């Protein structure tokens, strides 16, 4: 329970930190942030792992692939 509360607090602090520290980049400064590995979306194997997690765990992760469909009952 303590870990859950700590995690929620950490989330809020991190969001505030992000809001405070953004800077505008020139196109030539985007070499790192434009790297394919830096993008937020995952590949199909990551999606499949998230699908498995959403079935074997009670919590459905935000941004996850499974919103509904089936019982995941096995």
């Amino acid at each position, binding site marked *: 329970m303590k*870990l859950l509360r700590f995690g929620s607090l950490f989330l809020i602090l991190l969001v505030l930190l992000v809001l405070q520290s953004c*800077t505008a980049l020139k196109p030539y400064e985007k070499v*790192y942030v434009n790297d394919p590995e830096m993008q937020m979306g995952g590949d199909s194997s990551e999606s*499949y792992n998230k699908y498995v997690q959403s079935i074997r765990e009670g919590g459905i992760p935000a941004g996850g692939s499974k919103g509904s*469909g*089936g019982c995941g*009952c096995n």
Partner: protein
Amino acid sequence: MRKKYLLIGGLAIFQLFTQAQEIKDTRIQKVKKTEIELVYNQYFQDGNNSAVTGGTGTEKLTVYGPALKLKQKKNYKKGKKVKQRNLSLNIGADVISSASTDKIDAVVSSASLLDTRGYLNVEYGGTSLEKNISIYGGMGFSLESDYLSVGTKLGAIKKNKEESQSLSAEFQFFNDDMRWGRLSKGFFNPKTLIYPAELRGTQWNEKYKRYSYNLKLGWTQIINKRNIAAVFPEIAYQAGLLSTPFHRVYFNDGADAPETLGVEQLPDQRLKFGLALKLNTFVGGNLILKNSINSYKDSFGILAIAFENETAIKVNPNFTLSPNVRYYIQNGSDYFKAYKEHDPSEEYFTSDYDLSDIQTYSLGLALKYKLKNSKNKKNHFKTITSRYTYYKRSDGLTSHVLSLIFNMEVAKK
């Protein structure tokens, strides 16, 4: 016969998709790319707390999952404006061999039941490259012996002028029918909910439909030269049959009383809140850290948080190694109790360990190989990716996930 219709239907959709590539647009056509992705997933699971047998018994399961994804992107000019059209198709099947599902009919059985889940998703969207706005919509269905799920979605993505910030919103609606028999007794004539063999004299559930409404939001922000952060809040509401009709629950009747059991009962509404936070950092010349925290709460009493890190190591320009670690902790639902711990007077009860107090750990490794191709070559394999994940749950359930992806690109100018 049914398989024949599915095959003809699949070929017709594929034909429609390929024909779409050939249509000549009267507007100026700039670039047309089609990405083809072949995916194969394999999932092995073992455990000893199956919900089908009331929270005790084998959870042995194997899933073989081939899939094909096609994504076509076309840039064109309409007047002076440059636009982009996207069409994607995702078709696949999961062949499932489950020891526990076999025990719906026979409490003691050694054979494993074979089932299949088939799915198809189509998405179409347009982007105004000048205004940096994308709008898309999609439809899909998923079919297994015990359900048919039909889903629709509508979404939009807006980037700012500098492309340092992206805001997204997506609404999804799913209409699920949980009656049994679509794969065994005729697609248009599903009979009834399937209960465990010994409990079929009683109608345990009045509803057989499940409706899900999901609103997913996203905010991605470039923080500086080496950091990108994103926040994904999500709210979901479900109504209808939310329990699984062939999950047994054994009650605590006292030592001398005869054994009594029932079918899992859960409330017919569920509200869920999720929040994911991601931070990707380009640390050095060849190291990228991808960190995320996921928190979750719902009206069943589940409270959960997950911490995850994937570290991408660029061994050389063509080869990336990505070890992955994840830890998840969950406070279980108020309606969960283990085998023979429920009181018969309770209104809602389940012995499904997915809803219990659990912690899970997973460790994985992904290998991504970018193939060297001539710049003039229009059709080529782009990447080959393989991933292995080991997963362990605190109640003893373990699983192994293997994935293999071939990614190819076909370009036309």
